């Protein structure tokens, strides 16, 4: 029985023939809805309004929504299944916006030596006893050439019977294509950053390494879970979860198609891809079983660099295109970490340098005079707005900066200057750092009540409230409140990261003060105030001037591997040489974690 699902305010519709999950229906209409708690039905932040049509009320609806809301048609979106025609209104607060600038700030100059070469030569059909491949190799000045079955099958058609100009595409000694005439100026590649939340890709001209077009979109796996662990769980509960692989590949294919269309590049002109993804994404893209990644010791099925052909992944590129997935370190420290380390030159760091990727998953890498160490932490979703009362992603209306003046004036800034409707990661960090400085929050993390603010200026005291559930809180703007619970959540997140940093330093035999530089990767980092990060003790004590935001370093690293053979070699070495420090079960972790929970007292 067919029925129609209509989404407002876009007024996009979808015809369905069988019961369909709301999330899936929305995605098919290119509407991206949030699932902050991973559809566990605990946060209520996915609520949508059923304007027309019927939607059953679930127990979770009754727990998280008021009776009036339910009567008005509100339902939790994460588990809603549509079985008959309905009109659904998904409010602003529930939507996601993709945004991940790709390849900004090429931090270290990279060489230019693409693995895939395209050169034109004067072709002379071989005469006595020489094979065509040998003749071609000789003409190109390459020792020898080989080709896969499809290349060999195409060979007769590609190589003219008479002398002519041809262009060969090859990687090392692997022949990928022969084109007639001189087409050496048309060679393109795509660099991918496969993030848990956002996928980003850039189309690169392989002739000069320039980025022609870039695109990013939300990872469609989001509907199976907001973080990798929830998605792995989905795989466990659904016989491996091939949907995870399929939707990812579909998105990748669409992104490549979009890039090519925008730049006026043909499918057959894309010969090389480099992909940096975390371990889960790398496995999913290649269709490998994810399940072991969800249980101790959290191992993937391989860690080496892997190259497949374009045909194998069904991507709209040359069928013999080299699709190269960067090597991984171990467990959840994957190709993206390797790419980021490459981009910031962690392997060439003379002094001790810490690279922190603050994202949906947080990885840390430490580099010092050739020594490399890495660890993965369960920092939790606080930096993305998860588990925070008014937490949200960095979207219009999110408070992303907070200041408390000496006179006690509390001011906030919101993204796009929209009215404040929530608090994003950088806003949270700022808020706590400022309130810590102003004495409203103690180093232990305790948030004072209105009555306890005896020496604070009245303007600041005004903001201190008792919340509905009895907790202490601070009103930031509009109705957006920072609660005592929020501060604790931030403590847990930063404690995990700081403890990981301390243990890496210890394993490297370095004292805390020997850290020379801290690099923060991940788009979230772009808006953080260095002073706030250091004030909260998120990173070991260091002069804020020595903290550098490196943006989407993983994307930069993928691009480097695409255009430079030396960068590719360095990536292999980084993955190989990097020592992985397993924190879970580490005998010193608990003590380090507990010690890292408090905020620095800031006494100088």
């Amino acid at each position, binding site marked *: 029985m067919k029925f129609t699902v209509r989404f407002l305010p876009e007024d996009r519709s979808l015809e369905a023939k069988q019961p369909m999950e709301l999330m899936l229906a929305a995605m098919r209409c290119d509407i991206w809805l949030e699932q902050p708690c991973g559809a566990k039905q605990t946060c209520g932040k996915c609520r949508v309004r059923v304007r027309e049509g019927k939607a059953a009320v679930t127990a979770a609806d009754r727990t998280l929504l008021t009776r009036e809301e339910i009567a008005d048609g509100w339902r939790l979106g994460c588990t809603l299944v549509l079985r008959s025609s309905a009109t659904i209104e998904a409010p602003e607060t529930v939507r996601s916006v993709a945004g991940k600038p790709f390849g900004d700030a090429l931090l270290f100059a990279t060489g230019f030596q693409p693995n895939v070469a395209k050169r034109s030569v004067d072709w002379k059909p071989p005469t006595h006893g020489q094979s065509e491949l040998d003749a071609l190799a000789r003409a190109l000045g390459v020792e020898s050439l080989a080709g896969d079955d499809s290349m060999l099958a195409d060979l007769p058609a590609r190589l003219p019977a008479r002398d002519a100009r041809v262009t060969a595409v090859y990687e090392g000694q692997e022949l990928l294509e022969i084109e007639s005439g001189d087409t050496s100026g048309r060679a393109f590649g795509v660099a991918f950053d496969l993030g848990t939340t956002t996928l980003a890709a850039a189309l690169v001209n392989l002739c000069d390494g320039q980025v022609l077009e870039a695109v990013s979109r939300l990872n469609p796996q989001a509907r199976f879970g907001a973080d990798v*662990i929830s998605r792995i769980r989905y795989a*466990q509960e659904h016989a491996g979860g091939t949907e995870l692989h399929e939707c990812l590949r579909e998105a990748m294919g669409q992104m490549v198609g979009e890039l090519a269309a925008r730049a006026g590049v043909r499918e057959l002109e894309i010969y090389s891809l480099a992909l940096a993804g975390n371990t889960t994404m790398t496995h999913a893209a290649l269709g490998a079983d994810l399940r072991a990644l*969800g249980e*101790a010791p959290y191992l993937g099925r391989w860690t080496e660099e892997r190259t497949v052909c374009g045909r194998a992944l069904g991507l709209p590129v040359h069928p013999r295109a080299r699709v190269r997935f960067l090597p991984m370190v171990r467990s959840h420290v994957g190709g993206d970490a390797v790419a980021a380390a490459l981009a910031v030159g962690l392997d060439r760091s003379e002094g001790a340098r810490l690279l922190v990727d603050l994202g949906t998953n947080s990885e840390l890498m430490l580099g010092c005079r050739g020594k490399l160490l890495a660890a993965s932490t369960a920092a939790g979703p606080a930096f993305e707005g998860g588990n925070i009362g008014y937490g949200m992603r960095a979207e219009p209306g999110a408070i992303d900066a907070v200041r408390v003046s000496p006179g006690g004036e509390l001011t906030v800034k919101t993204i796009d200057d929209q009215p404040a409707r929530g608090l994003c990661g950088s806003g949270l960090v700022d808020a706590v750092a400022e309130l810590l400085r102003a004495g409203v929050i103690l180093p232990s*993390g305790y948030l004072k009540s209105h009555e306890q603010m005896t020496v604070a200026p009245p303007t600041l005291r005004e903001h201190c409230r008792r919340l509905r559930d009895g907790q202490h809180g601070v009103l930031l703007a509009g109705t957006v409140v920072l609660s005592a619970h929020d*501060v604790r959540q931030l403590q847990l997140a930063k404690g995990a990261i700081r403890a990981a940093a301390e243990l890496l330093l210890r394993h490297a035999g370095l004292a805390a003060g020997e850290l020379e530089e801290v690099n923060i990767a991940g788009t979230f980092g772009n808006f953080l105030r260095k002073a706030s990060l250091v004030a909260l003790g998120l990173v070991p004590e260091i002069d804020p001037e020595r903290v550098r935001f490196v943006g989407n370093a993983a994307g930069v690293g993928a691009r480097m591997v695409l255009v430079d053979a030396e960068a590719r070699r360095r990536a292999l070495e980084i993955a190989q040489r990097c020592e992985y420090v397993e924190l879970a079960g580490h005998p010193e972790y*608990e003590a380090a974690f507990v010690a890292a929970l408090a905020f620095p007292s800031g006494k100088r």
Partner: protein
Amino acid sequence: MTLLAELAHELVEGHADAVARLTQQALDQHIPPAEILEKGLIAGMEVVGARFRDNVYFVPEVLLAARAMKAGMTHLEPVLAARGVAPRGKLLIGTVKGDIHDIGKNLVGMMLRGAGFEVVDLGINVPAEQFLVAIRKHDPELVGMSALLTTTMAQMKTNVEAFRAAGVLSRARVLVGGAAVSEDFARTIGAHGYAKDATSAVERARELLEEVKAMREANFSD
């Protein structure tokens, strides 16, 4: 302030040395050891639990208090044992197979010891068989399971089924917790209780303990 009130206060403040000293002092003054435990140590941990629940105290403060309690128990335990004073209940606890997170579990253990329970901690990555062996050995009233990841939660269901099949649920109740777990989930898998943090764990444990006692008595009199 009475001596026991002072003892409780020092425990809340996390002063291990003071707690040890005052515990010994109370023993020297011939205050019944059971009373020292109830009105001094356990009373102090109750305050700690309440503050933790209200976000006034956090993990470090709870840890300090737990250490202070331990310092006091070093003096108290031998005397309690000699007098035949048994702990009010026994809890067996562990993190399920495939999961190696334990800070939360450790906190629950501390708070329950602070409430007068004997706690046997099996550690992390504990398979069903190991739970069963320990249940048969220790005969606890309560079995607690912790899992942090949604990927390892499924083990809890496996374990409960194994416990049921082995017949041990006629003498014990199962309590579960961990970031991924919820009240709904606990009910679905047949667990008897769910606690979202260490303080609620103490409350739920006390409730479940009464249920187990009643159940054991009923079975005994049959």
